[in-house]
């Protein structure tokens, strides 16, 4: 085997790897699109990709924001709540996310959870003051 053969083999392997990557992360690649593009898409497609993405152990802030915003537009509150809860784990002090999650919980009829979240938010705000 020569260096060139090794490099050719490696290049082929990388191409294959690219295909595997595209399949493996097709849900996350879907959420690389802007929210405006996603909401024009088929709701079923969004839902399947969002549910697949939310089963992953690690998601970036951008993924979670996109999923939450698109879910709001599609009226998929359970997905929105799941995304925002994961988002809050990444930034527990993010007031905007808390507000958004509280609102989603309210819309889902989980008033107790929403109230607790808003109270925490108000409490932490007054502590800061």
């Amino acid at each position, binding site marked *: 085997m020569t260096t060139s053969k090794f490099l050719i083999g*490696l290049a082929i*392997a990388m191409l294959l*790897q690219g295909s595997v*990557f595209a399949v493996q992360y097709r849900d*996350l690649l879907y959420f690389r699109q802007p929210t405006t593009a996603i909401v024009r898409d088929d709701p079923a497609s969004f839902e399947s990709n969002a549910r697949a993405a939310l089963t992953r152990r*690690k998601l*970036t802030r951008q993924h979670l924001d996109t999923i939450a915003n698109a879910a709001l537009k599609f009226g998929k509150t359970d997905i929105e709540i799941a995304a925002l809860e994961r988002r809050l784990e990444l930034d527990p002090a993010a007031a905007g996310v808390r507000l958004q999650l509280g609102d989603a919980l309210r819309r889902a009829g989980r008033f107790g959870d929403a109230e607790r979240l808003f109270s925490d938010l108000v409490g932490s705000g007054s502590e800061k003051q």
Partner: protein
Amino acid sequence: MSSDAQSLSVVTPHNPAPLNADDTRVSLDRPGRRYLTQGVSIAALAVYAAYLIYRAAFTLNPDARVFSLLVYFAELHGFVSLFLYFHQLWHRRGRRVVPAPPGLKVDVFVTTYNEDVDLLRQTLRAAIAMRYPHRTYVLDDGRRDAVRDLASELGCQYVTRDNNLHAKAGNWNNAFKQTDADFIATFDADHVPRAEFLERTLGFFRDPKVAIVQVPQQYHNLDSVQHKVSWKNRRMYGEQDAFFGLVMPGKDNWNAAFFCGTGAVLRREALEPHGGILADTITEDLHTSVVLHAEGWKSVYLNEVLVTGLAPVDLKSFAVQRLRWAEGNLKAAAFANPLTIGKLSINQRISYFASLYHWTIGIPKFIYYMAPPWILFTGTFPIANFDRTFVLVYLAFLGTLLVSYRIVSRGKGRLLMDELFNMVSFFTLIRAVKRAVIGRGKPGRFEVTSKRGSGSRDFTAVLPHLTLLGFSALAISWSLMGLGFGVTDDVRGASMAIFWTLYNATLMAIVLKIGTRPAEKRAGSRYRSNFAVESLESGGLGVTADISEKGCSLLWPEPLTIGQRFPARVHFGPRTGDWTIEVTGDQRQQPDGWHRYGVRFLDLTPADVDLINDVVFSVVVPDFFATLVEPAWSIRLWRRLKLAVRSAVPSRAPRQVVRVPTRIRHAAGTIVATVRDLSATGLAVQSAIPLPIGCPVDVTMVAAGRAWRGYATVARCEARLSRESFNTWILGLQFTSEQPEGDVDAFRRWDAA
């Protein structure tokens, strides 16, 4: 050992003055230095232990439990390795040589199986030529007529047998049973002893408890896979240098230096109860040593280069050799476990355990090589809380480790090179562990290390590295795709893992480069050497750049043509060879003006080949080990700083290695030689004859396109004693008058060879 046996040894007429070999031990470190290294050892181990506790308490990743524990295991393995290393270097001992008493009965065994007869010839001739009366035996397990004829020609005894039971150990024991000398020096077929080998080693047997005297294994083929030589900086790295230069002197402190299979002298009395050396494993040397130490015998390690052999020339041979050593040593524990065998001291147990434990390093190394690609593929880290605290703790730990390793290794440790050879060997060592675990209690298969290499490119030895390199490249590309397509945003973690992967990948690439280098074209090894070559037609002078059994690389001041032949005299220091030489290849003109050619010596007789080999092993190889001794850059820098602080002026003018041919005319004749080094005030040459201090000489130096002539006096004359008729003298010549600076400086820039 029985008390009867001891008293027998004492009253033997050959051994009139018994001594305690422990009294020959000398410390290699000054007390202050020793206490420093011991203190640093303890402090470094304490830091390492604290680091491990911190890791276990705060940083194991519960989300990747298996991965996290594997990496932790690798770190734990490193801690034990470090402890064992520091234990062995606790106090390095040298030995004061005691004269060999006259009248000892000595046999020399040279074992062979399938090695080239030419190779064996060199070893046998050197073995026979050793000073001190002895008989030489060639133990041929190949049952070859050519070896029988060689033995007959050289006048040594030929021993063979009708089977190959227990391989080398069985071969050795077969001869052991047929001979009766009290002491047996043993050499592998490629290990060429120096003339003084027996004189330097036999004296230790005046202690009746000494069973083994071992000298280091050094190698004369410096183009092997396990050497890296900087001729310019006069430095050499040998993969086994740390073992023979640091670890074995440390083991000697604990009376745990062991027999290494070649370059050793053994006492018959110690081996007699076992019928020779122990043959249950394929590393009979370590196995025999453990048992002899457990029986109360002593060993001596004499750290002098008294024998040199051939190191593996390609990675395949290297892997075969290391697999045998590792498998054999690990399996030896099943027959003579150093932790449980009786009557060893605790330090001997630890020392032997270190020699076995070392061979398991392939497993943690494999974890370290796989960890960063795994991180890149999965995004999972073995460390939880990869925060600033961890980074600071880790940097402090790493810094302590590096500094302590440097200090305890007395400036001789080469961490990067060691890491490179760990990379070379990891897969072989994993295979050895596997074989040792599966084949526990069985001896294993003895594979002879090829001394000439495979002769062709062979990729099998580097397949694991190639696979790992490909895997690492794919991991990096996977991670970059992940970052690029926003799958992950952990730039810091990915950067760390990529950096770690690239570091490993660089080592892998170097291993591949070593493993895939072109096969050796010449049948014999080439030895870098600079002998003056004189044309017997024109009187012109040139110099060799290297030499082999068949020819040399010749540096000549004028252009020659391919196919040109002329009679020439090669000045090998004390001997000369008059041959017709033929130019066979143009190896390009050098930047300093010399023309370099491949040259063949025509019509060489066997006596001529013997002469060349004698020169190589009596003059060239000893010169390697006398020359390539410059310390590490840190020590050189330290010395320079000390000089600067003391505002000291060096006692001699700065010298430069310059290898140009020279004619030195003195009252009694002319010496043709090669300049060794040159300064503004004088030069040094290696001469065939001594000259008296103060003797006036007329010096002519030749370089491409110019010659220089001047007058000097002999200021220094040092003997380099070797085999009979191969003694040389280093002459220091001081210019008698101030030389025009430009003239000498021009030569100082012309580093011909």
